[in-house]
């Protein structure tokens, strides 16, 4: 361009390129040298094997267990509405509890098919709206599909219909309308669970196994986000926090307990936590614990496992029914809540940070 400043740059420029290349070379060599030092640390993590293990050993068996339990429950309800005997009622109540416990093993998997179906909202929205249920029964309305029905069906509605009174009174009130409503609720539950299990045992498993990486849509990203969202909102808050009033200006709301009528809220919470622990550990195979270890974060895994022990000991010290515990043993519940809370920080802040997983429930740009 015939401009002196350019020429000035031109002369310096060759040196500049050389400098750049030299620096690149040095940094590469230096980095390689450093790499030699940490040899045994660098376990290669097989993300595909991790996902296959989770889906084959944890997710599918858990959905199958729920599917079977719900089918059993449905069958026993058919018999109950037909015969209305005390032993039938006992069996239904036992089956309900089995199914409710089985639900705790999949409730934190709200992604993929469960997300599409809206499984959690459909099967476990509580507190259930008992007044509306009663008026639906009077009007013999059994349509379950509208969104507004979510707090009038599912496990909480079954819990109400099957546990809200003494056995003899329950049996006495089973007229046609009530039986219809009960059957419709369990039918809806069965359909939803069947659909999700069907998807998982069909095509979804392989697409889950092959969606690698840690982006928003990846399987790892989805499962960590789903686990965290459930743990925070449905486990910490739904099972303990809301009933003890942490979210209502400190005034307890025992009437918001899960399985309020059956009176086994704590048992469900314990089962739910146990299932999340198993999921974290990948049962006996590759789990999030191994993932962390491979990312040079064995210390964090240890912290998480220790915290799980603390939560277990707090949870196990609690007794059902929850409303009575709120009355008599309030401080223990608050302590338990605090221990549960600590794990959120490790799971939601530290774990994704170490694994490079984007914690977000919505897609967006970053920089």
């Amino acid at each position, binding site marked *: 361009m015939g401009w002196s400043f350019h020429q000035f740059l031109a002369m310096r420029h060759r040196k500049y390129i050389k400098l750049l290349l030299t620096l*690149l070379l040095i940094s590469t060599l230096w980095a390689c040298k450093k*790499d030699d030092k940490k040899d045994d640390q660098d376990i290669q993590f097989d993300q595909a094997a991790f996902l296959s293990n989770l889906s084959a050993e944890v997710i599918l068996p858990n959905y199958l267990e729920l599917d079977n339990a719900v089918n059993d429950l449905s069958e026993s309800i058919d018999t109950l509405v037909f015969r209305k005997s005390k032993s039938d009622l006992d069996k239904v109540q036992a089956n309900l509890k089995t199914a409710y416990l089985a639900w705790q093993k999949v409730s934190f998997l709200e992604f993929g098919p469960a997300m599409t179906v809206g499984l959690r909202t459909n099967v476990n929205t509580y507190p259930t709206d008992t007044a509306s249920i009663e008026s639906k029964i009077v009007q013999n309305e059994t349509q379950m599909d509208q969104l507004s029905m979510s707090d009038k069906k599912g496990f909480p509605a079954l819990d109400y219909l099957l546990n809200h009174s003494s056995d003899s009174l329950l049996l006495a009130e089973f007229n046609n309308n009530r039986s219809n409503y009960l059957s419709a609720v369990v039918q809806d539950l069965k359909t939803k669970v069947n659909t999700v299990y069907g998807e998982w045992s069909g095509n979804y498993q392989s697409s889950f196994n092959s969606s690698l990486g840690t982006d928003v849509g990846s399987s790892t990203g989805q499962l960590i986000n789903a686990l965290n969202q459930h743990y925070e909102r449905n486990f910490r808050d739904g099972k303990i926090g809301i009933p003890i009033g*942490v979210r209502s200006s400190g005034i307890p709301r025992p009437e918001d307990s899960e399985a309020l009528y059956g009176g086994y809220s704590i048992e469900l919470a314990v089962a739910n936590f146990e299932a999340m622990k198993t999921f974290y550990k990948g049962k006996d195979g590759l789990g999030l614990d191994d993932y962390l270890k491979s990312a040079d974060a064995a210390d964090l895994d240890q912290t998480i496992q220790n915290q799980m022990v603390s939560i277990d000991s707090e949870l196990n010290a609690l007794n059902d029914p929850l409303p009575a515990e709120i009355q008599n043993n309030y401080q223990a519940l608050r302590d338990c809540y605090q221990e549960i809370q600590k794990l959120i920080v490790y799971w939601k802040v530290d774990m994704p940070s170490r694994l490079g997983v984007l914690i977000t429930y919505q897609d967006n740009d970053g920089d």
Partner: protein
Amino acid sequence: MMLATIKSRLTQETSIAPLAVFRMVFGAILFVSIIRFMLNGWVDDLYVSPQYYFTYYGFEWVKPLGQTGMYLLFSTLALAFLFQAIGFMYRWASTYAFLAFTYVELIDKTNYLNHYYFVSIICLLLVFAPAHRYFSVDTWRKPTLKRTHLPYWVIFIFQLQLGLVYFFAGLAKLNYEWLFEALPLKIWLPAKSHLPLIGSFLKEEWVAYLFSWFGALYDLSIPFLLIFSRTRWFAYFLVIVFHLATYLLFQIGMFPFIMIGATLIFFSPQFHQSLIDRIRKLFHLKGAKTDRKTLTFYPKTKNFIAFGLIIYFFVQLIFPFRYLAYPGKLFWTEEGYRFSWRVMLMEKAGYAIFHITDPESGRSWEANNYDFLTPNQEKMMATQPDMILQFAHFLAEHYQNEGIKNPEVRVESYVSLNGETSRLFIDSTLDLTTIDDSFAHKKWILPFEKTEN
């Protein structure tokens, strides 16, 4: 002597073609970006569904306009960028694009991105630049507007602005963690090891070091490699490699394409003229015979512009250094972090629990963040002190409306920086309702101490 050389170079006549191409490329990419933004449903996610917005200090009056309003704003914004690209009612379109885009960005600092800031200031520069006076609908409608040449400084201000963006981004990378610990790339790259071909390399630690050093050197050197004609093609090759790599590896949206398009302005007038000729041919536009006609300014306008530009670039030069006025670790406190071209520099995550106390009843409880904030807002708030304070004040107001006279709000927040174990971020004993936000140092941010393990 040097000054005189620079002055003569800056006032030297040059072809207007690079500026016209810049206008077209920038307008077109932004047009696509805005459409993409709408199609992704982000207008609803970011500007309609949230109940609360984190406004910027001094811009509390900026509010979203409701669903219809926001869609109207975005649609007209897309249209404005399209008009800008084709040079139709250019001044109006560019002014509107700048105001509307900046308004949107000011609604919620949750959505702050360096590249949005970049778009805003380029829009501002384009408002005043005569980018429509060649190869535009405006000159076709009013041929007297047409100019073929202008003083070089009009083009140089865009080159300078781009150069500053890169250079500051490079300077920001010159820190211990980036260079000698390869953080955060050491965390981010292995997470991408499932990618075909390059995936297996990304697990290697040396690759993180290589990327870190290459990134820093790239940012620092690219403005110079681009301005000098002999290295320009090589530099542009690097631009493409670098930005495509970031596009493939990270969730970075349209930014790579904006930069790949914008850096074309460094190319020679001949290059741009041949681009324009090719577009002409493609669309069978007749190239009216052009007499050389140079854009001139009235002396008064010239002084006004010179004065404005000196102020503008002075601010651009100084602003990224304002962090020096604050004590503590910049990545931790983020005081003076925004608007400084610090791009993808750290892995930071946090979780904030707000404890509310009603001194009258003595009761205490926790706020339910997710009742008020979107997951993304919650996430961004948890690591940025000014947002934590804003939200604390919002909560106080919320509980006052619920009938609690003087709620006290404390935050227990944990933050992890670059994969370090999370630790307490804000003084958890402090009632945040007693604190007002300002640009003074926030003494209630706890100091960052690195743990060795």
